């Protein structure tokens, strides 16, 4: 098998990239993509680690459920995005800030 750290580096990269995307993109859909990316990063970790603790499929199972959750989030997220778009006629997060101090 391959050195575990290589998986982890990739995971870290994906996570950070996802974070950056979430913060900088001026489009809600892109933010969504960023979130997916972050979730995937952890998936990589889980699967990779499962190789070390092969006695039980915990890691993979977890990854499986993460994917399911990701689906739900994506679905709900899109619904919300569309609703926001209906109300504000924009998908730029910064312009959706009526609620603030």
């Amino acid at each position, binding site marked *: *098998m391959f050195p575990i750290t290589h998986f982890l580096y990739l995971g870290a990269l994906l996570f950070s990239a996802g974070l*950056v995307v979430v913060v900088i993109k001026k489009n809600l859909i892109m933010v969504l993509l960023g979130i997916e*990316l972050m979730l*995937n990063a952890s998936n990589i970790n889980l699967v990779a680690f*499962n190789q070390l603790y092969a006695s039980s499929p915990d890691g993979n199972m977890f990854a499986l459920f993460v994917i399911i959750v990701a689906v739900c*989030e994506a*679905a709900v997220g899109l619904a919300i995005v569309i*609703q926001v778009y209906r109300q504000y006629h924009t998908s730029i997060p910064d312009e959706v800030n009526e609620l603030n101090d």
Partner: protein
Amino acid sequence: MSVSSFMFYFFECTAAISAIALVLIRNVFYGALTLIVCLLAVAGIFVLAFAEFIAVTQILVYAGGILVVIIFGIMLTTKISGKPLAIEHGHVSSGVLIGCSFFVLLSSFISVQLFPPANPSLPAYNDISVIGTGIITDYALPFEVAGILLLIALIGAAVTASHNAKKT
């Protein structure tokens, strides 16, 4: 260098590059496509990490599911205004700052971390049956809850998206 290791590093690079590309790209549509590439690469990595089932799910759900939905979403949100798909970046410095700092932090500590050695014997759970039994025994509860989660999510999404403020 064996084929498998070549594949592995190829997938790694693809995933990494596409991830970074996703950060840089200013077009929603291309962004979505890059993400597909990234996810496929990750699926490849899963395969090489002896998790074919996860890999398959990844490909099906993401590539087949989420991405379609997302692209559909893109269409929906851009069609109405007819704006170009190009988007700007905001808060770049802050975003990059935290992104980099996280990556540096994590990778630096990952590099010094010692992990227990993998047991060389080929894992036994490799076949689908283990997962199958797992789902109905040890992981029955999470599985059921996930089901409820999906249900709630779909109902919710339906209500949210379908409800038109004008009507009520």
